[in-house]
């Protein structure tokens, strides 16, 4: 029985199979509309997350399955002190597969150790969010046709952004991928990622705080929000906050076939004037998330299609 706790739980080949299946589902969704009949997905969300939770629920409903679960710890027995291990042991009797979001890092790992059903990590604190990574990879592959030979710009909060760390970990497995990491000095990628992933893997990367300078080189621009609360002083935040806002002016420097991704929610880091640019794909990216979750559910339930 397989779980998805970290993006690296899937080999490159397994990932390719899921992405291919996702693309097949996207082309003819009706062919898959009964695959999960009689199956139930449990969404165990110990903290709120409307988008991810609804994406999972939509995916299961699209497959002909049903959903049950809770959307905050207050409305579950967690408020009585029940452990994750005990919860999943019980849920294993109620459902066929589970998606868990928890504020504590490693909670889905504990669940997987005690579960009788496949567990999908829907986000554990600032640690992993593997289905966001699958969505990001699906988007990149669908729009560029490839996951190798890419120059990927990542902009904003690279220190605390788990989707950034996850995407880097996933992309370094492909040939000739180059990273341009744009952030304030205070929000650069963590040391372990620089040393144990990029340097150790001999990956080509640049760290900079100049987005416009490197825009013309990018195939993908992955934007994240620069959060005021991360800055040590207000003056630095005010000085830097506008450097990392993507607007129509900055998009003039970008290639015609560059794509802008964002894990959402976006606040002001992508100006609304960019939304109508055909290269802005963050809402399409959210839609792709449903297809890739459908493919993931089919794969983990080992259903034939």
């Amino acid at each position, binding site marked *: 029985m397989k779980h998805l706790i970290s993006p690296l739980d899937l080999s490159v080949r397994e990932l390719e199979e899921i992405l291919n299946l996702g693309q097949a589902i996207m082309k003819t969704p009706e062919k898959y509309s009964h695959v999960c009949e009689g199956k139930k997905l449990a969404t165990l969300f110990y903290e709120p997350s409307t988008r991810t939770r609804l994406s999972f629920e939509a995916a299961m409903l699209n497959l002909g399955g049903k959903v049950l679960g809770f959307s905050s710890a207050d409305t579950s027995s967690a408020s009585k002190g029940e*452990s994750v291990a005990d919860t999943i042991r019980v849920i294993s009797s109620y459902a066929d597969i589970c998606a868990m979001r*928890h504020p504590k890092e*490693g909670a889905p790992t504990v669940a997987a150790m005690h579960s009788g059903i496949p567990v999908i990590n829907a986000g554990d604190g600032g640690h992993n969010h593997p289905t966001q990574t699958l969505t990001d990879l699906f988007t990149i592959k669908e729009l560029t046709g490839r996951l190798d030979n890419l120059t990927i710009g990542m902009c904003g909060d690279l220190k605390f952004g788990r989707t950034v760390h996850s995407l880097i970990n996933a992309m370094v497995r492909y040939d000739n991928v180059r990273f341009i990491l744009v952030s304030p000095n205070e929000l650069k990628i963590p040391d372990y990622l620089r040393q144990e992933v990029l340097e150790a893997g001999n990956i080509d990367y640049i760290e900079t705080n100049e987005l416009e300078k490197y825009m013309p080189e990018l195939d993908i621009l992955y934007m994240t929000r620069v959060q005021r609360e991360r800055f040590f002083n207000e003056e630095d935040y005010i000085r830097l906050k506008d450097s990392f806002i993507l607007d129509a002016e900055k998009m003039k420097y970008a290639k015609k076939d560059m794509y802008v991704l964002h894990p959402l929610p976006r606040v002001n880091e992508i100006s609304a004037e960019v939304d109508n640019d055909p290269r802005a794909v963050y809402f399409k990216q959210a839609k792709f998330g449903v297809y890739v979750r459908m493919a993931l559910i089919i794969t983990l339930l080992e259903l034939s299609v």
Partner: protein
Amino acid sequence: MLNISGLNEGIVIDHIQAGGAMKIYEYLNLEKLDCQVAIIKNARSSKMGKKDIIKIEGPLDIDLNVLGVLDHNITINIIKDNRIANKKFLELPDTVTNIIKCKNPRCITSAEQEVPHKFKLTDKEKRIYRCVYCESKFKGN
């Protein structure tokens, strides 16, 4: 310098970081042993300035490899016939459970006490252990 008579047969755990011997004593459950155990604290050391030493008399069947996780300077001398018969090299175990604790306040182990603190060796060369749940690094000696 305090003098403790030499062992005829037993184990000497040497080069323990000064002040760390009692932790080692607890991890190895030495309080359960009937044989003689000597703890020397703050002995002079040319290599470390000062160090702790534990001497345990008699044949012993204890897994000492976990000591390499706690303190990589530790050396083990096996004593037979009142002399060092051989030096044991500590092999780092692939996993350790409930020996070291995860200090990350965001880890599930901080919220649920019955979850065992389990670490995996992720870099043998650099002796890096990571929590299997949150993947944060264990910072030992």
